C-alpha cells in the first residue's frame, strides 16, 4: 500500500476476511455502512462533494486496517461523517448527527444509550488509524477539469456527459474503487463510461483513441473497463437487492 491506494489482491485479505468474514459479506457490509453514512448526511444537508465523498473514503480506509467484527459499521459511519464535516469545513454537531441517525434508522441506533460518546470515542480511533492524514482528493475536481478537454464536442453533449459521470461518481462511493484507484483515474473511467452510455464520440481525427493518455500514461483500455465494471456490478447487485432494504443490518 502506498499513498492510500491498495492493490486489488489486498481486497481478498482484508482484516474482516482474515477474521472469518466471506468476501461477499464484507462487500455487503461496506455498502451498508456507506448507505448509513450517505442517508444521514443527506438528512443533515451534506453534499456528496465534499463531505459525503470524504467520509466514504475514510470508511473504506478504516476497514482496510480494522475488521468489521471489532468496530461496528453503524458507529463508524457516523464518526466518519462527523470527522469529514470538520475536515472539509462543513461541520455538523455530533448531537445533530446522532439525532438524525436515530430518526432515520431507529432499529439500528436505538440500542445505543450513549451514541454521542460512542461516536466521539470512535473518532479518536479513526484519527489514529488514518494517521491524521485527513486530506482526501475526490474525483469530482478532476472531472471538472476534463470538462475543458473536448472543445470540439457540443457544449450540451459535454455537459450531459459530465452530469452523468458526476452521478456515476456519486454511486462509486459504494464500491471499493476509491481505495484501489486514484481519483483522477476514477474520473477518467467514469467519464468514459458516460460517453459509452450516451454513445458519444469524444475522439477526434488527430486524437488518440485513449484520450486520457496525455494525463495518465500506460493505462490500458482493459484497466479502464475493469474500473467501469466495478460500478456496473454495484448497479446490478443493488437492482435485485437494495442496500438496507428494510432499514435493518444484515447478520450472519
Amino acid at each position, binding site marked *: 500500500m502506498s499513498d492510500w491506494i491498495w492493490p486489488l489482491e489486498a481486497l481478498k485479505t482484508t482484516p474482516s476476511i482474515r477474521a472469518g468474514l466471506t468476501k461477499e459479506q464484507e462487500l455487503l457490509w461496506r455498502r451498508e455502512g456507506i448507505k448509513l453514512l450517505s442517508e444521514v448526511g443527506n438528512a443533515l*444537508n451534506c453534499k456528496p462533494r465534499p463531505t459525503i465523498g470524504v467520509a466514504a473514503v475514510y470508511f473504506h480506509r478504516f476497514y482496510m486496517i480494522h475488521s468489521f467484527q471489532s468496530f461496528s459499521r453503524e458507529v463508524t459511519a457516523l464518526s466518519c461523517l462527523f470527522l469529514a464535516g470538520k475536515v472539509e469545513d462543513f461541520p*455538523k454537531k455530533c448531537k445533530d448527527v446522532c439525532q438524525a441517525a436515530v430518526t432515520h434508522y431507529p432499529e439500528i441506533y436505538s440500542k445505543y444509550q450513549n451514541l454521542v460518546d460512542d461516536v466521539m470515542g470512535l473518532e479518536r480511533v479513526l484519527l489514529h488509524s488514518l494517521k491524521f492524514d485527513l486530506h482526501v482528493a475526490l474525483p*469530482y475536481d478532476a472531472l471538472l477539469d476534463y470538462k475543458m478537454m473536448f472543445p470540439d464536442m457540443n457544449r450540451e453533449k459535454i*455537459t450531459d456527459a459530465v*452530469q452523468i459521470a458526476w452521478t456515476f461518481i456519486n454511486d462509486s462511493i*459504494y464500491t471499493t474503487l476509491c481505495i484501489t484507484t486514484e481519483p483522477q483515474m476514477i474520473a477518467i473511467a467514469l467519464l468514459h463510461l458516460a460517453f459509452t452510455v450516451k454513445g458519444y*464520440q469524444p475522439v477526434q481525427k488527430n486524437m488518440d483513441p485513449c484520450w486520457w493518455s496525455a494525463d495518465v500514461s500506460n493505462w490500458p483500455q482493459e484497466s479502464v473497463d475493469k474500473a467501469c465494471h466495478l460500478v*456496473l456490478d454495484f448497479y446490478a447487485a*443493488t437492482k435485485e437487492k437494495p442496500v438496507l432494504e428494510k432499514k435493518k443490518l444484515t447478520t450472519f
Partner: protein
Amino acid sequence: MDPLEALQKHVQRPEEFPLREVTVSGISYVAFGDYAYKKDTETSLQIYGKSDEFYSLESLVVFLKYSHENHGVYVKEAAAAGVRAVTRIDRKNVTEYLQGDRTDFPALMNQVNPLSLRQLLHSSEPEAKKPRLDGEAAGEPMDTSTSDEPQESAVSAAKKEVEIRALNDNLTKDRIAEMRRKRQSHREKGIVTIDESLSTLTSASLPKTRIHKTRENVMLGARDLSNVLDIITSAQRQWDLNEKKEKVAAVHATNLSKDQSGAAGGQQQRSGYSRYAQEAFAHEKTKEIQTEGSFIGSNFSSIKQGHHAVQKAPDAPPGRPPLAKPIQLLTSSTATSSGSSAAQNGSKRTSRSPIIIVPSAMNTMINLYNVRDILQNFSYVPVDQRRKETNKKPVDLAIQRQKNGVTYNIRVIDNAEKLANDDWDRVIAVFVMGVAWQFKGWKWNGNPTDIFTHIPAFHFHVDQDKPVAQVMQWNVHKIPVSATKRHMDKARFSQVWETIENFVRKNKPHLTARLGL
C-alpha cells in the same frame, strides 16, 4: 259621461241640460247643456240581433221626439230624417233607459269624452248665427217687417244672446272678466319666458373675461405637477414592500439556522449566518451540475435515450418483488451503444427473424461494418476498410441469404444485452472476439461454457497466427481467414453457414422455415 246617460239627464231635468243642435266647421253636434257629442256617436244600446251595432245618438233623439206617437208614424219620421229607426223589439228597452227606470248602462267599448260647448262656440265666432236659426226652428218666430230693423235687431239679439248664454250657463259677468284677466296674465307670462330665453342666450354668448392673476394662482407656477403625489405614493409602497421582503428573508435565515442547530438548547445564532449551514454558499464550478443524483435502481435504457431524471438515492419500499435481471452495459474500446426507439421495440416484439450476434468492438475481425460482406457476399473485407467508406455505424442490420431462389432475412446485432429472455431462442450464431467480458449481461449469467452449449460460436483469426489462448479452451469453431488470398473465403464462410444450418435442424426446428431448411 256616456251619451246615453247625458240623454237620460236631459229627459229627467230638461231645464238644466237643454237640447241643442250645433254645426261647427261642417260637423254636426248634439249638446245637452255643456256636454256636446257628435250626432253619429254610438251609444251603449245594442241593436237586437246584431252583436257589433249600436244605436246612434241622433237616432235616439228622433225617437225621443216621437215617442208618444205610434210605431208606424215614428218609422216614417225617422226615414224622413235619414236616421236608423229603433226596432219594435227594442222600443220597450229604449223607453225604459230614457225614462230612467234602468240605471245599469252596458259598458261601451271605447269611452267617448264629451266636448265643451263653450269651447266650441268660442273657437268659432264667425258662425254665431247658427244658434239663432235653430231658435227660429224651435217655434219662436220673430218680426220681419222691415229690412233695416231686422239687421239691428239681429246685432242686438246677438249681444243679448251672449249675455243670455252667460246667464244661462251660470257664468256671471264677473267670472267672464276674471277669465279674461287670467288669459291676459298667461300671455304676459309667455312674453316673460321669451325674455328669459333671450337673456339666457345673451349670457351664453357673452365673451369670457380675462382672468387676472391673484395671490393664490400666482403661487401655482407654470408646470403641471398633479402627478407628483401619485409617483411619491407608488414609490412609498415599493419601499415598504422591499422592507417587508428583507424582514421575511432575515426571519427565514434565522429559522434556517435554528433548524440546522437543532431544537435542544442550541447556542444563540446570529441572524443570516450559521456556522453549521455552510452548504448554502454553493460552489461556482458545480452550478450547472446536479450534484446529489444517483442511478441506483434505475435503468440504463433511460440514460441512453436521454430522458433520465437524476434522482436522489431512493429507499426501496419493503416487500418489493425482485426485478428482472438487470441490463448490463458492454464496454470496450470506443464502443458505442445505440438507443432503441419505440418503433424498433414494437417491431422487435413481433419479429421472429433469426439473430446473429457479432462483437461490438473495433479491433476485431468481424462486426457490424463488415458482417454483410462476410456472411452475405462471402468475401472478407477488413473492418478498417469498410469503416472508412461508411461514416456512421449501421444501427440495425439485416442480411439476406439466397437459398434455392428464395431470400431469407437474418438480423444481426452487436448489443446482446438488449435481448429479452425469449429472444435468445432465435439466436443462431455468435461471433466471439476472444475476451470473456464480451458476454457480460448475456443469458446463462454470461458464462461462455453455457453459451457455447446452446449457441454455435465462431472465431475468425488470421490463418498465419494461432487463435487467442482463451479461444483455444472454448468450444468455438475457429475459422482461419487469409490476409491476402480472397479465393478461399467462399469455402470457409460457407462452412460457417453449414454449421449454423446443422445446428438449427437439430436444436431449433421452429426456425427451419426461416432459413429455408
